[in-house]
């Protein structure tokens, strides 16, 4: 599909949204990524990625409830759209396709 180019970080963010299913918002996504990939990510980077993904149509968002810790500000919850799911799938397929074509002997020895 055209226009489904997914950067690496964006792919990770998208996957995190998928993992979190309900309750995926910027802070929880950031924590999930940090937990899964053991690298530090700043919440603003995640937010930018979320914003771009929503613009491309891979995510949709809605405003959720506010809590006391958030000073009465609501959180924005993201869910993957079918289009986004399709894009993820295609990316996965591409990886697997190419990975299958790499002769396994490169990784043996050494």
């Amino acid at each position, binding site marked *: 599909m055209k226009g489904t180019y997914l950067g690496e970080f964006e792919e990770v963010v998208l996957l995190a949204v998928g993992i979190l299913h309900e309750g995926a*918002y*910027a*802070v929880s996504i950031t924590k999930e990524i940090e937990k899964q990939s053991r690298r530090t990510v700043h*919440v603003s980077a995640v937010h*930018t990625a979320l*914003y771009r993904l929503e613009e491309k149509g891979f995510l949709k968002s809605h405003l959720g409830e*506010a809590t006391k810790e958030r000073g009465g*500000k609501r959180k924005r919850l993201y869910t993957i759209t079918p289009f986004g799911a399709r894009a993820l799938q295609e990316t996965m397929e591409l990886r697997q396709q190419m990975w299958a074509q790499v002769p396994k002997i490169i990784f043996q020895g050494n």
Partner: protein
Amino acid sequence: MLEEIEGDLNELFAERVAAEGERAARQQYAWDVVRYLRPHTLRQSHQTRTPLYTDMLRNYFILAKRNLLQRKLYAGINLVGLSTGIAFCLLIYAFIRHEHSFDRFHADAGRIYRIDYTDRVNVSFQRRTGKFLGSFQALGGLRMCRLPIPLGPALAESVPEVEGMFRFREGTAVLGAAPGVTQQEEVVFADENLFTFFSFRLRSGNPRTVLAGPRSVVLTESLARRYFGEADPIGKPLTVNVGRPETYTVTGVAEEPPGHSSLRFGVLLPLRSEPQYQQYKDEQLNYFAVLTLVKVREGVSPAALGRKLDGFARRYFAENIQAWRKGKLIGPRETGIQVTAMPLPAVHFDNAVMWPRTTSRLYGYILGSVAGLILLIACINYISLALTNAASRTQEVGLRKVMGASRRQVTLQLWVETQVLVAVAVGAGLALALLLLPAFNAFADRQLVVNPFRNPELLGALLGLGLLVGTLAGGYPAALLAGFNPVKVLKSNRTHRFNPALSRGLVVVQYAVCLFLITAALVMYRQMQYVLRKDLGFDQARVLVVENPEKDPARQKRVWERMQQYAAGRPGIAAVAGASASFGKGSMIYFFTINGQNRPVDVFDVDYNYLPLLGIPLVQGRNFSPQHPTDSVRKEAVIINETLARQLGDDARVGEVSQQLKMRVVGIVKDYHYASLEMKIGPALLWLNPSAASTLLVKLTPGHGPGTLAQLAQDWKTMSGGQPFNYSFLDGDISTQYREYSRWMNLLGLAAGFAILVACLGLFGLSGLNAVNRTREVGIRKVLGASVGQVLLLLNRDVVRLAAVSFVLAVPGAWYLMRRWLQDFAYRVEIGPEVFVAAGVAGLLTALLAVSYHSLKAALANPVDSLRSE
């Protein structure tokens, strides 16, 4: 920042505080914010739309109506005040606009200039115009707008920038269409290019030739109808007498000149038929009579024209300039005289010269200020009432905010409420203005029309005024009320106490303005009384002033003789005298060299009966008398007044010839006011001209007035050879001189009255609210033993103090301005303290009256009722 980002950051902050402590958390937070600074994170995107304030407008109108109807009294007070202010503003706007539109209707008005002549040679005296507010004008050298006859054509010839030139002069003539039916009319003698130079319109006749013939006459429609009925007057003969009756031919009928034209005419005659034209048409310097205008070519700037005029003056008056320089009257490099040009649209405001229908710009300013003041008082009323009323609206505002209104929305709602009231006031003001229009037109001597539907400009001004007032009056209370913290207000039950300083300040300003107006009106009134009652040095009672329009000296003399015979047999007529001019109608001015300076002297031609008829006493010498035949030799004998005698000094000895006057002084008469009291009595002299009778003074004996007058009117026709009978009473003439002043006095009085009314209404409202606020206090005091009197004192103490402060503020300004105004008069009253005391007392009493209703009510209230709720 976007809401969710703020929330995220808050959440992270909370976690970090728990994990690392507050300080670290804060640092991280700051860093987070920096990292978040990208365009898409700021509030633009994703945001729910800001509420459209206009959605609520319909609701605001309903609320406004409801609120206003609930508080009918205060709405009513504000309505009265605002509509009065608006009505005044409207009238004065119409007036000022009319003033500024004078003479602009001519097609070439931008290129037309009036030529003035400034005399710097004879600067030893300054003649001030005797007009209202004359002392506020700057005085320069002697500038005149009347020029010698040949100056205009010479200018047009020698200055290439000048495309055309026009001269005119006013005068009177006696017209007759049928024998025996004659009427004296004001006429204008004009150059033949009147209708091509200006944009006056001709109903019939050729604009180029209509004044070309030496015996042509042009009438306006109304005059044509008067003399010729409905018939076409073109080509018909008309008898015109400007010295001798002659037959002229009507060559054109013109439309009435519009209301905003300086130049008005009923009858137009060629300039050449002016009686003194032939004699003085080449007189370069000593005869200043015609008004001269020029039209310049396209693109000529006023500065360029000015330079050309300077050059022209140098050439045209070259000989005179040389003579003056030689006689050391001017310096070797000076020219002594100056020829300047004034653009036509500005001419209407030039009060310093004798141009028809001028006014001072100051009129507009003063009227505008008065209207502005009244409007200001009304707005202050509104603000004060709103502020004091605010306490009762805090709950309303608090509730609205809790329900979700933003501060801006509440402000808007309150402002709409004010605006609705102002809109009603605008309507009421317009109605009021229309109601007052006839009276205002009578006052201002204009024919103004106030019709916003005809003039979109007026409508725009009206709407603009409404918006301005609404914002001015409503803006501050709206902003203040909308700023309430709903939590604080809804929790506590106490009434919010406002800083009373602002309210008090506003009331002080209001009252100071009122006091100022009252003082001004009082001073004017006193001056008027003084002027009307002052002894003028002669007896003005029962003196009839009859104009003798006969110009021919022989015939004039005959009329005079007949009048003497007529009077001799009648008991109703005590005496008849003749003079060249009556009071307030000007005098001749001759220049004499007195004490080395060229000075003007007022000169009157009189007959033998003049001084006795008016009861003017002589301090030395004698009156003219037939027993001294040399008296009647022209200019041989003269009577001077005390002022002139003082100036001449030793030279003025009775019975001897004065060297400076070159005439024999036969008597010195006591100074008397021959002109209005604005001017100091100047040097004057009387010549004997036994049949001087362009004006006849007829003294009537008491008790025979009406009968004698009627008889005289009938007999006049035979005596004067068919001349129309135009008369007035001397005391009436004198008091009309001050008519303008009494008009202004009436206006100021009226304005003061309105201002006081509005201010009192405001005070009334304020005191009502004040009393309500203090019912509990009053109740407690009464319980503790205060009498009604003491409570009254307490409640009114504030008012007295405020009135005192207003007084202190108003007095200096009023005193200074009134002094300047009084300088218009050479003979005036002094502004004594009584005036200020009277104004102050009046102000205080009205203030007390306004508050008395509520303070009495509060003082008499039963404390049980007010304290029951405790």
